C-alpha cells in the first residue's frame, strides 16, 4: 500500500517536471537549447566507443564486397584519373583567369574555405527532426549557422555548438529552407525540407519550365549559405509540386566539411552567443 502511494507520488512529481520542461519549450525559452549543446558533448565518447565495432564490421563487409571487382575498378580509376588531370589543368587555368579578372574589376572573392572536417558520430530527432551530431565543436572554431557540405553538395547547417560536438540540421528537416537558384535558368526559389528523404521546391516564379534532372544551387540570398553550392536535383514535376533529391549524400554520411562562412543573422537564426557553447533552433 505504502509502495503504491509512493509510486503515485513519484509519478505526479515527474509529470510536473515534464510539464515544466514542455512549458519552457512552448514558451520558446533558450534554456533547453543551451542544455542540449552540452548534452551532445557528454554522449559523444559513448557514441565513439559504440561506433568502433559497427564501423569495423561495415568496413570488413565493404572490403569483402570490393575484392571481387578490384581489377575492373582499378582500370576505371586509371581512366578517371587521366581525365581528372586534364580537368584539373583546365580548372586551374580558369581559376587563375577568374582571380585576375576579379582583381581587375575589384570584385570581392566569395569562396568559403572549410573551417573543420568532422566525422558524423550520431543522428537525432527520430521522426520529428532530421539532424546529425558531428565530432567538432567550439574548440575547432565551429560557429552556429555555419553551412555544412560533403563531397557532393550541401548537407545542412550548424544549429547547436557544444565544446567538442555540434548538431547539424539537415536539408530534409521540416524547418530547413534554403534559398536556391535553378542552374539552367537562374530563377530563384526555396528548397524546403519535409522530414522525408526528398525536398520540395517552393516559391518558383510562375511560368518557369522545370525539367526532371535540373540542378539547384544555393543562391546566397538571405545570407545563410554562400552562393553556388550544389543543393539538389529535380526528380518529379507534377504541376506546381516539384520534388527534389538532395545531392549531398544524406543516407551515408561519414565525414563532412563545416565551412568558415559568417551567416547573416535573421529571425530564424538568433546569433546571441551563449557562454562556452551555443545553440539555436
Amino acid at each position, binding site marked *: 500500500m*505504502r*509502495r503504491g502511494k509512493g*509510486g503515485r507520488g*513519484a*509519478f505526479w512529481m*515527474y*509529470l510536473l*517536471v*515534464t*510539464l*515544466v*520542461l*514542455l512549458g*519552457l*519549450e*512552448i514558451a520558446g525559452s533558450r534554456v*533547453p537549447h543551451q*542544455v*542540449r549543446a552540452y*548534452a*551532445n558533448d557528454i*554522449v559523444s565518447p*559513448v*557514441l565513439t566507443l*559504440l*561506433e568502433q565495432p*559497427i564501423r569495423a564490421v561495415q568496413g570488413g563487409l565493404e572490403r569483402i564486397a570490393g575484392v571481387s571487382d578490384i581489377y575492373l575498378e582499378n582500370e576505371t580509376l586509371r581512366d578517371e584519373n587521366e581525365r581528372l588531370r586534364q580537368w584539373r589543368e583546365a580548372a586551374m587555368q580558369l581559376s587563375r583567369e577568374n582571380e585576375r579578372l576579379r582583381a581587375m574589376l575589384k570584385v570581392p572573392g566569395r569562396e568559403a574555405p572549410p573551417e573543420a572536417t568532422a566525422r*558524423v*558520430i*550520431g*543522428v*537525432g*530527432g*527520430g*521522426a*520529428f*527532426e*532530421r*539532424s*546529425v*551530431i558531428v565530432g567538432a565543436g567550439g574548440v575547432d572554431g565551429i560557429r552556429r549557422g555555419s553551412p555544412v557540405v560533403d563531397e557532393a553538395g550541401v548537407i545542412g547547417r550548424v544549429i*547547436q555548438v557544444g565544446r567538442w560536438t555540434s*548538431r547539424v540540421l*539537415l536539408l*530534409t528537416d*521540416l*524547418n530547413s529552407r534554403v534559398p536556391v537558384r535553378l542552374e539552367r535558368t537562374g530563377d530563384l526559389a526555396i528548397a524546403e525540407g*519535409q*522530414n*522525408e*528523404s526528398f525536398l520540395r521546391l517552393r516559391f518558383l516564379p510562375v511560368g518557369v519550365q522545370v525539367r526532371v534532372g535540373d540542378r539547384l544551387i544555393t543562391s546566397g540570398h538571405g545570407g545563410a549559405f554562400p552562393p553556388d553550392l550544389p543543393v539538389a536535383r529535380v526528380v518529379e514535376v507534377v504541376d506546381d509540386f516539384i520534388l527534389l533529391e538532395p545531392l549531398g549524400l*544524406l*543516407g*551515408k*554520411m561519414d565525414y563532412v566539411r563545416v565551412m568558415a562562412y559568417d551567416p547573416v543573422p535573421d529571425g530564424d537564426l538568433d546569433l546571441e552567443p551563449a557562454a562556452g557553447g551555443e545553440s539555436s533552433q
Partner: protein
Amino acid sequence: MNARRPVMASFGAAGFLPVIVSFFMAAFMMLPVGTGAANIAMPHLVMISVFYWLSSRPILMPYGACALLGFMLDLWLDVPMGLNMLQLLLMRLFVINQLKHYKGRSRLVHWVIFGALAFGLYLLSWLLVSLVYGKILPWEPLALQWAITAFSYAPVGFLLGRIRRAAM
C-alpha cells in the same frame, strides 16, 4: 513484516541491468547505422526496452529511471524536452495498471499490447510537438517510425529475453 529495502539494490548489480541496457539502447539509437544517417529507419529501442522490462521486472524500472532515460533521450535526439520523459512515464503508468491483465500471456499478446500502446504514445507526441512548433507536423514519418518500432518489438524483445535469462 520485513523492513523495506531499496528495490534495485536488493537484486545486486543485476538490479540495474534494465536501466543500463536501456541506456545503451538510447546510445545505439543515435549511431549512424545504415540509413540511420537520414534519420528514417531507426526503431525507438528505448520504448521497446522499457516496455519489456516493465512487463517482466516492473520493480527494476521505477518512475525515476523512466524519467531519467526519457530526459537523456530528449537531450540527445533534440526533440522538445519532456517529450520522451512523458512517453516513458505514461508507459510505466499503463503497464503498472494493466500488467495484471496480460502477465503470463503469450508473446504475441505482449506484442499487440506494445503496438497499441506505442501508437497512443506516438499520437500524443505528434500532438505535443505540433503544439511546441506551432504547426501541424506531417504524420507520415511518425507512422513509419511507429510501424518500424512495433515490428521491431519481437526481435528486440527476444534479445532482451536472452540478456535477462543470462543475467538474472
